[in-house]
């Protein structure tokens, strides 16, 4: 068995949290513009997502989802649990069934983080939007993902809003952004 799978399944999450924090603050220093940092985080997330999906499908053995509701459940109960150790709840379905919210009570990316006043437009966890978008694109789903609420910016909960845009044709190659 290869070394990665022999390592303990759970490791201390503080190194992960601090690494992400270092990444975000470095981007803030490099770009000096919150909107641009959000974009860069989303792009990085996308590049992670298009790769992570393979690992996810191999480790979880979930089959193809029959509808968007199933997709939502798999994301919340399997994917988030597997990679971040949390299980957000799925709520606020649109009447057409093409849009829903993930409500996160806690988020390991933001442990210990307090946004300074001069970064009020920073969407700190933007990486997650990109990851979800990239991962779903590899299973032929084009989605729009954004943060509707953010505890770092004063809201009571963190809410990710996901909207199904369309099915992607299989023969279009997905490249890095």
């Amino acid at each position, binding site marked *: 068995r290869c070394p990665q799978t022999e390592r303990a399944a759970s490791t201390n999450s503080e190194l992960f949290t601090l690494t992400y924090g270092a990444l975000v603050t470095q981007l803030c220093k490099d770009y000096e513009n919150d909107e641009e940092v959000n974009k860069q985080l989303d792009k990085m997330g996308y590049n992670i997502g298009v790769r992570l999906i393979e690992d996810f499908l191999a480790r979880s053995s979930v089959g193809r989802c029959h509808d968007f509701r199933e997709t939502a459940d798999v994301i919340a109960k399997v994917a988030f649990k597997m990679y971040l150790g949390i299980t957000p709840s799925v709520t606020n379905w649109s009447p057409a069934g093409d849009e829903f919210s993930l409500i996160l009570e806690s988020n390991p990316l933001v*442990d210990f983080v307090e946004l300074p006043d001069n970064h009020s437009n920073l969407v700190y966890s933007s990486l997650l939007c990109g990851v979800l978008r990239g991962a779903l694109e590899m299973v032929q789903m084009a989605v729009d993902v954004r943060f509707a609420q953010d505890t770092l910016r004063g809201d009571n909960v963190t809410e990710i809003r996901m909207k199904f845009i369309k099915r992607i044709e299989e023969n279009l190659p997905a490249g890095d952004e």
Partner: protein
Amino acid sequence: MNCPLYIRSVPTQGELKFHYTVHTSLDVVEEKISGVGKALADQRELYLGLLYPTEDYKVYGYVTNSKVKFVIVVDSSNTSLRDNEIRSMFRKLHNSFTDVMCNPFYNPGDPIQSKAFDSIVSTMMVQAC
């Protein structure tokens, strides 16, 4: 490098004289930690206890193994605050301080402006008075 990262007092007037008390107490802290020697070198934290009594105040000290110093000044008339309560206050302060250090937006050495840290300190001060 002994500039304070955080000073808070209740009531807030007369804060300046606390700056002075705390500053002079640092000399006592330095004395204590340099005189400690091997006996206490294994301890991860150094609760220094009562540093020195003055007429009006009791001053307690605590230093981490990263040389961060915490000082608590209590009115002499407060006799209900026991040693283990002071220890527990220092532990809470140390934990909160660690959380502040983990905020990626905090630069070590800057004054502490964390709301979370403020609220821990407020709660502690309310409980102690």
